[in-house]
């Protein structure tokens, strides 16, 4: 529709993931992400392994994450949520490391090749991850908002896209 909020960049993985339910592909991706990702020089050298840690400082191993880090550091969620609280799934450990592996691999590769845009855009997959992580912490307060039987939870990011790190 003409009036849909930004849905995130359609990356290769997002497009693949659209073919299967969110959870199914997350498991599958664990294998792909783990093997392909960890094996590569770029991943190691470019400190893609930072994705495996929960320390926000490890994200800034890549200077291109500096803006988000700085903003997070001054933001409302610094005391309560680290990067991975929002950028990895909470559904299961497998899913969590699957996403970490995938992102780690893809971003390391992008970083090494330098073929990423000046203003980095979140992928639609990672946008969904972030969205579902809001509910992980804020389910109680939003319980009434999600009255809809249509299985279409409110898009938190339409109004709160700045909570993690205002740009």
């Amino acid at each position, binding site marked *: *529709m003409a009036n849909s909020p930004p849905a995130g960049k359609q990356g290769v993985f997002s497009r693949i993931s659209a073919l299967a339910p969110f959870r199914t592909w997350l498991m599958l991706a664990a294998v792909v992400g783990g093997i392909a990702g960890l094996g590569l020089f770029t991943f190691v050298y470019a400190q893609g392994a930072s994705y495996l840690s929960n320390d926000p400082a490890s994200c800034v191993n890549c200077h291109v994450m500096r803006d988000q880090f700085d903003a997070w550091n001054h933001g409302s969620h610094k005391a309560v949520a680290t990067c991975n609280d929002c950028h990895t799934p909470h559904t299961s450990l497998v899913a969590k490391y699957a996403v970490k592996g995938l992102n780690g691999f893809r971003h390391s590769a992008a970083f090494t090749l330098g073929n990423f845009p000046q203003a980095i855009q979140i992928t639609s997959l990672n946008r969904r991850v972030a969205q579902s992580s809001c509910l992980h912490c804020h*389910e109680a307060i939003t319980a009434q*908002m*999600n*009255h*809809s*039987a249509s299985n279409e*939870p409110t898009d938190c990011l*339409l109004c709160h896209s700045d909570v993690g790190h205002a740009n």
Partner: protein
Amino acid sequence: NITTRKAEGEQYPLHIVEIADDELDPSVWGKNFPRHYDSFMKTQDSTISTPFGGSVPFDRLERFPAMTRIWAGYAFSKDHNEERGHYYMLTDQLETQRIQLVEQPGACANCHSADAPRLIAEMGWEEFNHTPYNELKADLHQGTSCADCHDPQTMELRITRPAFINAMTQRGVDLETATRQEMRTYVCAQCHVEYYFESETKVLTFPWEKGLNIDDIDEYYTEEGFKDWVHKETNAPMIKIQHPEFEMFTSGLHYKSGVACADCHMPYMSEGAVKISDHWLRSPMVNINAACQTCHRQDEAALLERINTIQDRTAGLLRTTEDALIDAIDAIVAAQNAGATDEQLANARQLHRRSSLRWDFVSSENSTGFHSPQESARILADAINFARQAQLEAERLGGTSTTVSTTNAAP
């Protein structure tokens, strides 16, 4: 989705009564949703005052005197007030001179009474619309109700008004597949839209076949050969536009960015441990913090100033357009007095109509330009052009108009 499932228990926090499918009384729904009911009832407040909107039902004809002449010969020139909260929607209709001085069809009740869907089911669509309002009115008991927008069992948003369904279907939009965010606009678009009563049947219709912008709507009415009334002074076949909030909104940036009516007019508010939609539908200007600041981080004064700037520019152009329209009317009258024929005057009258309906599209849109600032100004620029062209056409046909307003070149 697990999260929504889990939440289901909480979404109907108090399940004190079963709500019958035909329940219209908000206080009954309110037993299950006391917080929603409380905010809903606040639409009784008629004291909110903003520069151009608000809920004080001031006399618009008095404040903008040109309207009396612009609508000459039509009931609007007798009685038209600033609208107020939903609480009054039936009262205000029953009390207006526009119902009392003129014989109106039942179609009027579509948007002013929660009884409309029931009566339509009972009487049939055409019959409902075309029964005189005065006959129908004994059956209108409830103005606004939760039932207008909600399914009583699931509390999901729903569309209850056939005119909107018909118009959208004709435009190829399947309302069944509307997203939740779209529904947050569509429930309002059942009523906050331009409409007309189909000449023969009086069936409530939205003029959207060619599109939602004013040029499309003008073209549609012209092709249909439709007119709302004949102008008392100029004899032009006129169109009256009413509250095209939805149409105007769709040409603006908020709509294009996925924002819905409810986001600004029913923003979330924290009530104890939960966030609920504020059902006190009103001007966001008295609620900037919740209505704007989650998306815009500027301070309240700066956001208010944005609205003021947009509205002041629009209001300035509205007044300029009114001057031009009055000059056009004067010139056509003078030409008529000088003996110009209908054939000679046809062009001037067409231009008068086209100018007037554009002015009305902005003037009757209740945000004074805010819902789509550039488009509002663009439309008024065209309206001014057409009014001045009407005046030119008419002056060429002779007659001395008493107009002086154009002769003053000083700023």
